[in-house]
């Protein structure tokens, strides 16, 4: 970020970091780079988290507040007022894709800036159904299935039956249907149905889960496309919404059984290094073009991700749009450079453009170099359906290297009790290599150097997904 670009617009702003963990830390660091003061929040359970320690160390006076919940909008607004914040950064999760919250922030008596897309865009694209309709209207391919949330069991069964029959007609030997919580996101509340007779019980389970977790029992029913790659396109635009650029593609195909991403790679395919049964470069070009087309059509005005699935035949289908910064933005930033500025911090770009600065560069100014791999280190048991592990971390070490960036909220001083209220994510390890082979070798070396131990009250040793990550490193970008 050149200092010349961070002009007057950024002065006199103070940002409320309305999130926790590593994303809160990245936002605070980005604020530091841009010279913007911030205030942070934490709940009682998070008192020992790295983001609390960082806020205490770097935030200055009136920069850290204990709240009852990260989910309470009133709480956030009262802290923002008390700390005299002028903008709110929601991070990812919590309020990041809540258009009502974004609208409230920008429309209240003491108006603030919501650092994310404008609330109308979140409303339009944050809804999977609307996104699907918009995509279809623009000729963008989408996954076959329902294009509105289903609340009626009989109707749900009818749709599932049609999708099963469609797959049988297509000659698919093991047809599958996906049942998703309509209001869900990030892979939560999704189940597969193998047997049409099992549909009703799965539907009821997902519906009940959706009601408990998202207060909306609507579900989507879609064809489950097997044997696909999960790709993403990273879009950035400024408040004019007229000049979106992309920061390349990511491949997030290596997931846990709960459809949770575990390894992300940028770029999405490497046709120069690996052989594909289809024109991989054309697929990447197509999904970028489709994503930019949709972004332009809605006047997309901040950071967002278009999520795609690509079948073995090389057919892309749009899944959804995430109208927020994502966990994995760092791996795209790691391989990108803006001409004349050097490395990229997508969170700083989000803050800068969110506060009203123009983008200041064009697509031609963005260069990509090498391959980035991001490992999500999580306290979970891969042998037991990736069940979260609860307990204390007693040791967490790794060998530093210039090609490695570790993002973690686990404090240096251990032991650290993992709070049970949130995802059991421990760290993101971002590795860079000049090509896929080098990146994989470095990834394996990092995992070999990792020492992560702990135990819980019942004496059980910490379980993590490190071995799963290592086992799957060889699979990266192979279709």
């Amino acid at each position, binding site marked *: 970020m050149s200092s010349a670009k961070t002009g007057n617009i950024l002065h006199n702003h103070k940002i409320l970091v309305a999130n926790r963990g590593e994303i809160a830390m990245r936002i605070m660091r980005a604020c530091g780079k841009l010279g913007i003061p911030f205030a942070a929040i934490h*709940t*009682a359970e998070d008192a020992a988290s790295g983001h609390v320690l960082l806020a205490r160390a770097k935030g200055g006076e009136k920069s850290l*507040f*204990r*709240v*009852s*919940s990260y989910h*309470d909008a*009133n*709480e956030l*607004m*009262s*802290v923002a*007022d*008390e700390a005299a914040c002028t903008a709110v950064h929601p991070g990812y999760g919590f309020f990041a894709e809540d258009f009502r919250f974004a609208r409230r922030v920008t429309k209240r008596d003491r108006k603030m800036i919501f650092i994310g897309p404008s609330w109308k865009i979140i409303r339009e694209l944050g809804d999977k159904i609307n996104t699907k309709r918009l995509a279809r209207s623009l000729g963008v391919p989408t996954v076959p299935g329902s294009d509105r949330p289903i609340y009626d069991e009989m109707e749900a069964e009818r749709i599932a039956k049609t999708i099963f029959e469609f797959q049988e007609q297509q000659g698919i030997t093991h047809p599958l249907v996906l049942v998703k919580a309509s209001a869900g996101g990030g892979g*939560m509340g999704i189940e597969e149905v193998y047997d049409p007779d099992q549909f009703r019980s799965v539907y*009821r389970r997902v519906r*009940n*889960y959706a009601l*408990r*977790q998202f207060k909306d029992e609507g579900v989507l029913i879609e064809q489950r496309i097997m044997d696909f790659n999960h790709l993403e396109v990273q879009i950035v635009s400024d408040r004019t919404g007229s000049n979106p650029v992309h920061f390349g593609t990511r491949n997030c195909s290596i997931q846990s059984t*709960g459809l949770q991403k575990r390894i992300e790679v940028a770029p999405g395919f490497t046709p120069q290094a690996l052989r594909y049964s289809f024109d991989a470069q054309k697929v990447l070009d197509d999904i970028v073009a489709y994503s930019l087309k949709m972004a332009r059509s809605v006047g997309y005005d901040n950071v967002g991700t278009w999520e795609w699935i690509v079948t073995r035949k090389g057919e892309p289908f749009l899944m959804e749009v995430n109208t927020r910064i994502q966990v994995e933005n760092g791996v795209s930033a790691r391989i990108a450079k803006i001409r004349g500025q050097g490395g990229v911090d997508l969170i700083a770009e989000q803050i800068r453009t969110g506060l009203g600065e123009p983008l200041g560069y064009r697509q031609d100014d963005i260069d990509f170099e090498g391959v980035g791999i991001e490992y999500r280190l999580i306290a979970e048991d891969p042998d037991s359906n990736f*069940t*979260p592990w*609860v307990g204390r971390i007693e040791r967490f070490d790794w060998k530093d290297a210039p090609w490695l960036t570790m993002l973690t909220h686990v404090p240096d001083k251990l032991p650290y009790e993992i709070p*049970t*209220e*949130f*995802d*059991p994510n421990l760290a993101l390890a971002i590795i860079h290599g000049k090509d896929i082979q080098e990146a994989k070798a470095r990834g394996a070396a990092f995992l070999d150097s990792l020492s992560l131990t702990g135990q819980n*009250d019942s004496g059980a040793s910490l379980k993590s997904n490190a071995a799963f990550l290592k086992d799957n490193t060889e699979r990266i970008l192979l279709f």
Partner: protein
Amino acid sequence: MIDISELLDAIKSSPYREIVVAAPHTGRMSFAALETGMCVHGPQGQWKEMPGTTLGTLEREGNPKPICAPENGEICRIHKELDGGFVEAGAPLVVLRHMLTRDEVQRIILQKTLYLFRAPERAKYYFTPETDKKIRATDAHSVTIRDGMELFIMSRMKREVPLHYAGPDGVIYEIYFKYNENLDAGAPLIGVCPRDHLHVIQDMIARVQTEWTET
């Protein structure tokens, strides 16, 4: 066999507990006219429809929220230094000394007599939809459970897993968790009473009702 007289004597030797009334959320705190030693009331009425004595007001986003005494008691400490200031969630505001009621004594004794099925881990717990329906339709006392039965959904870190009951067959006599509440590992979830012991429990309750005098 539990010696109920011994239990009652133990409770009588220290028949109160201290309650810390904390700020439920952030906001600007204004205390009511309170003095140390003053008696306050908790919520009253058949459905506790009358709130307890107002201890102060916590204002957030222009909405004043009355902070009321959660139980009857005597004020031991008032954090007057917070008056008029911005308080964080969880900040202690007032400390009350609450004399145990008959119902509370009964609950303490029940916890020692019933079979307690405890939370294996810190998490949120829900009954499975089938059990939930039965409890709503009748009441917990008429729901019979058996060892190995899938009884709860344990939700933690956004993941839900089924939890099977392990213990003696019987009826659910007490429910110790609330919807959407995070429980620590080891906290009791339900108290179970075998059907043929129900009369023993009823006798104990009758004894508490007659032997415990509320002050």
